[in-house]
């Protein structure tokens, strides 16, 4: 089985031979221990690549940028782009392939396996370390080893893993050109346990929960910006995001529908988040980035996870495993449930 050093060697080879334009991977950020996305253009820079439990980002998001960049160039470089993906991120690539947003030959996928672990949740880490700053985080079998200024501490992985990793159904990439790590399947007892907890609340309790959370929203749209699947040039709920061109007539501009106001009021926030959740039905692969990016800590992934659960349980649809599968919302089966229809 290949390991991460082999993957780096392959990356060097690809860049030396000019087979890929550049590589999107994880590097160590400014504070010395947290990973950030890096763009590697030369074989020498491949040294910067890292793979550790702080690699939370969904790098498939930058494939959207790459497509937009190519669209702006008169004679784009048609070589593929290399991208490092975890299991969850590879499912995002599968969805983008399903929707024909990118072609398989536009990407070279370097997969990394989370083995039986995953990535670390910042808040859980901050609480466990009680204010101490980490210097390095490593995975050793089923424990996370954290080096701080005072020495090493270790915790069982379940105590620090991001919530989504605890329910993960793809801890190794579902498609790849080269894979680092073992293809170990992790047994997940309740893949939708976190959603079920909210479903178990009474109707009014659920309402109060969501009202309290969505009232915090300042409509920064970070959740939308960080999502690889929110690639629409013009978002339907965002009345300022009009794709106006020189050909748009005055009448079109004057009569453009404004679905919700820009103000961050409760009712408008609800419509924005509900529409986003519906537009991600059958497309969201629970990379958790929306929730991580949200500056007000709104638990956004539950909205999407709920629809993922419904897709699985009622339509037998698993999101992001088979690139040949048709999208959920634009397909149907003759025996789809219809009991709710009068």
């Amino acid at each position: 089985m290949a390991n991460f050093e082999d993957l780096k060697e392959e990356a060097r080879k690809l860049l030396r031979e000019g087979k890929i334009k550049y590589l999107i991977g994880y590097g160590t950020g400014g504070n010395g221990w947290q990973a950030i996305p890096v763009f590697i253009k030369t074989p020498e820079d491949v040294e910067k690549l890292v793979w550790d439990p702080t690699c939370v980002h969904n790098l498939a998001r930058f494939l959207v940028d790459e497509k937009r960049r190519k669209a702006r160039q008169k004679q784009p470089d048609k070589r593929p782009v290399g991208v490092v993906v975890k299991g969850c991120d590879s499912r995002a690539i599968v969805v983008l392939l399903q929707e024909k947003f990118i072609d398989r030959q536009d990407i070279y996928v370097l997969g990394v396996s989370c083995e039986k672990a995953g990535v670390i949740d910042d808040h859980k880490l901050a609480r466990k370390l009680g204010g101490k700053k980490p210097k390095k985080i490593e995975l050793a079998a089923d424990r996370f080893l954290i080096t701080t200024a005072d020495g090493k501490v270790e915790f069982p992985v379940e105590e620090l893993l991001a919530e989504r990793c605890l329910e993960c159904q793809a801890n190794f990439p579902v498609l790849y050109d080269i894979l680092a790590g073992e293809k170990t399947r992790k047994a997940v007892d309740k893949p939708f346990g976190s959603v079920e907890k909210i479903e178990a609340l009474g109707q009014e309790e659920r309402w109060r929960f969501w009202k309290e959370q969505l009232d915090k929203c300042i409509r920064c749209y970070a959740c939308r910006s960080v999502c690889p699947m929110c690639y629409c040039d013009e978002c339907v709920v965002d009345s300022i995001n009009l794709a106006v061109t020189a050909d748009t007539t005055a009448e079109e501009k004057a009569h453009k529908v404004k679905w919700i106001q820009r103000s961050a009021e409760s009712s408008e926030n609800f419509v924005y988040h509900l529409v986003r959740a519906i537009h991600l039905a059958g497309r969201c692969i629970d990379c958790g980035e929306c929730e991580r990016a949200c500056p007000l800590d709104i638990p956004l992934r539950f909205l999407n996870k709920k629809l993922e659960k419904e897709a699985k349980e009622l339509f037998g649809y698993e999101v992001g495993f088979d690139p040949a599968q048709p999208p959920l919302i634009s397909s149907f089966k003759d025996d789809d449930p219809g009991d709710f229809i009068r």
Partner: protein
Amino acid sequence: MTLEISSGKMMDKILEKKSLPLWMEKLNAWTVYAPRKDENERWNYEIIDHAPASLELAVTTLPAKALIFPQREVFLEFSKTIEGNRETLEVREVLPNGKPFVIFGVRPCDARAIWLLDRVFGGDFTDPYYWKRRSQASLIGLACHTPPWENCFCLSVEGSPHGEEGLDILLTDLGDSYYVKTLSTNGEKLVQAARELFKEPQPDDKKKVQARHAEARKKLVRGVKGTKKERAAALQGLFDSSLWDEESMSCIQCGICTYLCPSCHCFDINDEVDSISPLRGKRVRTWDNCQFPDFTMHSSGHNPRPDKASRLRQRVLHKFRYFVENFDQVMCTGCGRCISLCPVGIDIIKVLDKVSNHGA
């Protein structure tokens, strides 16, 4: 229009920490805000229902500007009434008319940012909505005795862990008491409201304060290089550089840096029409964000800042060059939020380092 700074002698006082909640409770004439920590260890200013035992050094997610320059503000309401064949359009200005409010525990960088915003919303054209709230606000700052965040860099942008700009009172933590330095008439009123709780300072209290402040200055690890004039000049030469493209590669246009910046102030004005017939609606100001792709979209379809590189460049130049040219101040106050909260680790200090190395 500027705020009244009392020119008379303002007496410094000492407040024992155990009297802090009592002081807050005495301030019935004000709505009292203080930082509160939630279960994720994040701080935000909230109206207190019971006073905290002490003030901790808190980096609130939303800066104090959110209470003076809120995300949504109604300017005016309009409605049309039709009687027979006469149409009357009524327009009512809606000025903020809430109670005076006091914010405890404001970090000097947040307060300095508000002091900078006073120039934007004041000067030749005063914004009545901003000033109504601003004149109702009293800010009680807490001097930082350690950098609250690993990304603080206030000293290198003409700020300080014990800066006084924008504050009505500055508190310095002396262990079991606070040194209370009153800086304005608003501050005086706050102290007078509970004057029996305050004691006279001892002769060496002032020395202790100065020692604390000096300690805090030494602890700041990060900083941007050069003086404000040097940085502005370096940025001038780099407008067309490919540096911006490289630095913005990982930017995802989420806008968190701008929305949470204590000195960012761009806004949008929209008419929110609640009913067309009879006509009824409001004119509303909301926050806007130069990192949104369509921030500079013209109605012709042309967008002078069509890509991430130009938008990142705009943000850095506005903070470190344009504001310096307009107001002779650096607009960035070194709070570090944009660095710590950026989901992809873009670091404005690193960007500026590259800028100063570029010229070299």
